[in-house]
């Protein structure tokens, strides 16, 4: 009796894959569970309680207002930073790709530069710049977004560029132009829908970076989530860990949701 030929499968088998999943899962989840366990501790060893969580979210005390202020600032910063990425970086990448392909390397170099410059060094350069920023835009925490727009560049650029490389933007835009589309329509109706995956990934990464940023905010004397957590942690380490845990879970869920949304869209497109 002949056997049906099995397709050649590369990569690890199911056992190895399970082991990899477990190890990686433990790597990410053990710190999170440790943080959770820490926040649930009481004065008595082995006894746990949600009292601290209730106190933080119960609204009965003003002790945590500074953290909420920091959280609010960070969320505003995240939105403004994503806006900067989408309004400045995305059109620039598209423009370079379509009209100035010779500048691709230069743009890549400029965008990757911030990852090589330590935040502390960047702040030395940013400090005098922010004297001007403050005189023009005031000293609101949201102005940090101008600096964050630079710090997220490497992540956002890579996310968008990997999508751009997978799409023949030149032919798509030329096809749209030949059908009567103006440049604005080419961008919004043809290019953006096909760069959705990169745009979502860039946005999610930018949010994650902004929520975790400390150095620039601290050295430029602005309040964001991380600086406020540091401040609170000096009097109440438990609440600092609660917010740090929530920020991590939020970033994790955000990336997960974006990934699922993109995958689901891809599945619908392929399955229909």
């Amino acid at each position: 009796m002949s056997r049906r030929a099995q397709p050649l499968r590369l990569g690890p088998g199911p056992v190895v894959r399970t082991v990899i999943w477990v190890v990686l899962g433990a790597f990410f989840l053990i710190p999170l569970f440790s943080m959770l366990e820490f926040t649930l501790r009481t004065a008595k060893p082995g006894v746990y309680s949600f009292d601290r969580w209730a106190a933080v979210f119960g609204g009965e005390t003003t002790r945590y207002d500074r953290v909420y202020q920091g959280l609010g600032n960070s969320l505003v910063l995240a939105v403004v930073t994503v806006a900067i990425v989408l309004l400045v970086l995305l059109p620039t990448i598209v423009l370079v790709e379509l009209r100035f392909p010779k500048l691709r390397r230069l743009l890549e170099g400029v965008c990757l530069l911030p990852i090589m410059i330590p935040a502390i060094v960047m702040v030395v350069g940013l400090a005098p710049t922010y004297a001007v920023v403050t005189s023009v835009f005031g000293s609101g925490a949201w102005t940090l977004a101008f600096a964050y727009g630079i710090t997220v560049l490497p992540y956002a650029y890579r996310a968008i560029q990997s999508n751009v490389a997978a799409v023949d933007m030149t032919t798509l835009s030329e096809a749209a132009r030949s059908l009567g589309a103006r440049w604005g329509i080419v961008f919004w109706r043809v290019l953006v829908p096909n760069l959705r995956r990169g745009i979502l990934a860039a946005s999610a990464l930018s949010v994650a970076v902004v929520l975790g940023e400390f150095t620039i905010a601290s050295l430029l004397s602005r309040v964001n989530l991380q600086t406020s957590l540091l401040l609170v942690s000096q009097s109440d380490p438990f609440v600092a860990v609660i917010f740090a845990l929530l920020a991590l879970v939020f970033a994790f869920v955000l990336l997960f949701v974006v990934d699922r949304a993109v995958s689901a869209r891809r599945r619908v497109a392929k399955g229909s």
Partner: protein
Amino acid sequence: MSALETAPRLGSTVALEGLVRDFGGGAGLAGFSLAAEPGEFIALLGPSGCGKTTALRSLAGLERVDSGRILIDGRDVTDEPTNRRDLGMVFQSYSLFPHLTSGQNVEFGLRMRKVPAAERRRRALETLELVGLHHHADRYAHQLSGGQQQRVALARALVTEPRVLLLDEPLSALDAKVRVQLREEIRRLQTELGITTFFVTHDQEEALAVADRVAVMRAGAIEQIGSPEELYHRPATAFVAEFVGLTNRVPGTVSGGVLAVLGQTVPLAAPAADGPVTAYLRPEDVLLAGDGIPAEVLTTSFLGALRRTRVRLADGSELAVQHGARDLPVPGEHVRLALSGTPVTVAPEA
């Protein structure tokens, strides 16, 4: 019957006058001029880097020209952007918008012209029906084969009833059988709709098969333009003779308006000065005959209804001979050759 099928003839006159485009390294245009009549199907044929795609892209407005004029229906559109030229274009690479279905792709041009949704849908389906894909209106590009994608791209280019249809090597990514089917379909639709069409290709067989006129290009300009028959039988230059169809280069002598070659005299395709020349002989104009010059068979290939045989003459030069498939020369066999007497193109010996 669809709206497009009952539409009046859509062809426009197109004139490209002295187009110059210098890229500083080939593939540009060097005084390219061409005039197309309404409804004419013109193929731009030439080797890589001859400027054929640049000429098409200039007509589309996708490439600017350094000088020269582009007129459609007598109106100068040289400085008009692509989206205002009212053209349909099919590209070499697959160009369907991946996030839209076939139907939505075809509707795109109508949407840009603000056609109401119901009419848009109806016209898109009618045009997809023209290319035999109305049942695939809800499919995305990745759910279609290469040939189907190019058919949808053709429907998308035609649905707006453009003044000129531009085809930039639309068949080159397809396999041989689909390529032949689709080129015949393109020709059928073009004839039915009467759209003035420019078709860029490097495949001479494709150009000769579909076009009313073929423009053979070289170094950014047209070397010769004419019907496929003219180009094949009366090539104006050595370049055209060699590029279009298979050709044997044989030394000969022109004297008194006739050519002496391979021991025979034959008429000239175009007048030439007396003296030594290179004659360009088509394989089908060299016959296996009982009383001609002697040659030895080297190889022979079966081509269906025909057979092509390579022979070596006494002086060591080689010739390709095309003959009926029923003649079966054997390698090593001694045969004799004669010329059919068809007028021959010559070039002065270098």
